[in-house]
């Protein structure tokens, strides 16, 4: 550990930490644009200038003063000095981030960065979460002395989801480094020279692109852009950032389990942004996850229970739908019932479901249903997994927890389904096509109960459809492919009469005489931690925002 005097603070930081990070850890802001903890450090924006202290050449030994030049905080690291090189006999480094010299330098750098920047904050998507705006306010001049003509480079279409407003760009090159280092695709670069520098994709002289920014991580460049230059078409002009509520959650797009922030308003989810997690997704998430939330806001969402009357779906109320189901369930033998949980559902949903199957229906035929295997995408610093379910691992463990870990999957599941009289299928998968064998199996079932979020091929086959919820409408936990148990949080209310999946299952259990009485997801998590091997620590409280890793 290095002992550093930072302004008036005496702090201990790990060797090798740069000044920007060291200051951030102790609540001091060193403004920066080009520096990003997940990327290399070119130190080209000059915004993080700081003043370091050291021995003054030519002065008597022991005299300490500021270094002749200011240093960039992002590339200046601290480390433990040998005993004879300590400053003031105790410090490994002395750093000023708010001396008059530093403040003046910052002001001037900002003035330069703003030379060609338009004053279009009122129509800029980034306003409110813009580093340029914030730093100008906190560290900048109150006016510009620039009276010459501003450069007005054109607005550019970079790819399926990314727009570049070149005028707003401060050429920090974060996006270029991202495309080179993290996605490894290298679509972005700088064209022209000096103050005419522009970010662009490779184009012919006439402006026709040779390559577009269409890799599956492209959306991250919008997040890391410190200004409003790179803009997501999906979010463009949708909302001001300060009008949205935020909730920490986990992406449900694949089994990586990227930490995300769900940004939402009363009327729906507006965007998903990645949230830092060192061991899972670092700072990033993929576009499949990022843009894959639209089904949550769909107008087609199932809002009322449906039952089949004379081969037509008729909307009904919960009491009626559940009565139809309980009647049917009490008619058949336990071995004729198959209960299928969802790899898209939370651990809590699946725990209640398996409890329902075991304690109430007395069946041991539990299956797991999930998205079809997709494609794996590997990038130099990121992987998108082929398993497109967020909770395959968790659902499998929990469904099998009281069953000797036997969970029916794949062909064996559909074989069992073919011979079953009643099947209770919890789906909740957006856009899941059915394979022929699956379809045939489900068609052969006498009475099919489907709990789902959207009308689909699966609900078409059902006798009763129960409207369930998406990841954005419930609390719970997901277990990712590497054994991290992480929390998702309720953001918006489910549409219409739709209910949280475990509540539906519990209601069914109660009607059939079961003794379940959970009030909220955290209570179920407690039951899981008591009854499921390996999940001892997986209470909502302990999981928190950082998640916990299950013992291998």
């Amino acid at each position, binding site marked *: 550990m290095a002992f550093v005097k930072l302004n008036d603070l005496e702090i201990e930081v790990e060797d090798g930490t740069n000044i920007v990070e060291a200051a951030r850890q102790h609540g001091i802001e060193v403004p920066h644009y080009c520096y990003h903890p997940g990327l290399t450090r070119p130190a080209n924006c000059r915004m993080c200038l700081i003043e370091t202290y050291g021995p003054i050449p030519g002065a008597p030994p022991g005299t300490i003063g500021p270094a002749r030049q200011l240093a960039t905080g992002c590339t200046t690291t601290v480390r433990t000095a040998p005993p004879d090189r300590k400053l003031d006999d105790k410090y490994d480094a002395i750093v000023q981030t708010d001396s008059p010299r530093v403040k003046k330098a910052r002001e001037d750098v900002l003035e330069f960065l703003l030379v060609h920047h338009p004053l279009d904050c009122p129509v800029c998507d980034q306003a409110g979460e813009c580093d340029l705006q914030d730093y100008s306010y906190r560290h900048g001049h109150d006016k510009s002395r620039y009276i010459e003509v501003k450069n007005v480079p054109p607005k550019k279409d970079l790819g399926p989801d990314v727009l570049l407003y070149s005028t707003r760009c401060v050429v920090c090159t974060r996006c270029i480094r991202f495309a080179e280092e993290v996605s490894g695709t*290298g679509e972005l670069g700088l*064209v*022209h020279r000096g103050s005419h520098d522009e970010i662009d994709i*490779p184009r*012919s002289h006439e402006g026709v*692109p*040779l390559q*577009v920014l269409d890799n599956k991580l492209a959306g991250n460049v919008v997040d890391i852009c410190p200004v409003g230059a790179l803009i997501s078409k999906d979010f463009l002009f949708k909302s001001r950032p300060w009008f949205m509520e935020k909730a920490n959650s986990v992406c449900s797009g694949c089994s990586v389990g990227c930490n995300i922030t769900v940004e939402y308003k009363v009327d729906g989810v507006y965007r998903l942004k990645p949230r830092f997690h060192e061991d899972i997704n670092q700072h990033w998430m993929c576009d499949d996850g990022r843009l894959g939330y639209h089904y949550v806001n769909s107008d087609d969402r199932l809002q009322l229970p449906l039952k089949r009357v004379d081969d037509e779906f008729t909307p009904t109320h919960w009491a009626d739908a559940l009565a139809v189901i309980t009647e049917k369930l009490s008619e058949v033998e336990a071995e004729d019932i198959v209960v299928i949980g969802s790899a898209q559902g939370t651990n809590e949903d699946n725990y209640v479901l398996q409890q329902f199957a075991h304690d109430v229906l007395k069946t041991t035929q539990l299956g797991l249903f999930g998205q079809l295997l997709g494609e794996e995408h590997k990038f130099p610093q990121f992987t998108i997994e082929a398993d497109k379910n967020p909770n395959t691992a968790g659902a499998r463990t929990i469904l099998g927890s009281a069953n000797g870990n036997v969970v029916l999957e794949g062909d064996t599941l559909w074989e069992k389904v073919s011979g079953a009289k009643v099947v209770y299928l919890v789906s909740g998968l957006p856009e899941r096509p059915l394979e022929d064998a699956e379809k045939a199996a489900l068609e052969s079932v006498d009475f099919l109960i489907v709990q789902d979020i959207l009308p689909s091929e699966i609900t078409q086959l059902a006798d009763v459809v129960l409207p369930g919820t998406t990841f954005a409408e419930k609390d719970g936990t997901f277990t990712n492919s590497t054994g991290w148990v992480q929390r998702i949080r309720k953001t918006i209310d489910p549409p219409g009469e739709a209910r949280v999946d475990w509540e539906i299952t519990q209601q069914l259990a109660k009607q059939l005489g079961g003794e379940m009485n959970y009030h909220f997801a955290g209570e179920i998590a407690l039951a899981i931690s008591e009854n499921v091997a390996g999940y001892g620590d997986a209470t909502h409280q302990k999981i928190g925002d950082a998640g916990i890793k299950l013992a291998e």
Partner: protein
Amino acid sequence: MSDELIQIETPFAFNEENQREFDELIGRYPIKEAAMLPTLHLAQNQTGYITPAVMKYVAEQLEVSVMKVKDVVTFYPMFFEEPVGDYVIRVCHTLPCALRDCKVVLEHLKEKLGTDIASETNLAKGTTADGKFTLMKVECLASCDVAPVIMVNGDLHKNLTPEKVDELLAKLAS
């Protein structure tokens, strides 16, 4: 995206002689990317200007992204992205040449050739209709002692006056 991706109909490749030269020069550098500038010069000498096909070919040869090549091509004013004349006339307009009346030389050239001065993004503006000459202004050519100077396709011409320019143009035109 409204824009269609560019389709390269006639791919570029080095001719035999340039291929030999490329093989030779690539060995001089620790990494392939470092050979970017000489490779681009070779390619430009072969085609006259850098087309998308050239950028793609060079990127493949040097194992870098196309954007890296585009980056370099747009940075240096000696690479052209559109056709230029057979003779590219670069007129120095930095201080010593300016003091020695390069303006007169430039105006004379403009009048004689009947073109404007090319800008980096619009070379056609400075190219004569017959495609023989391209006229452009450049920064210091490092021959201030013999100002004003111009450079024609790599050859330096010193101590210029309108008369000398006439002589030169006559020689080039023949």
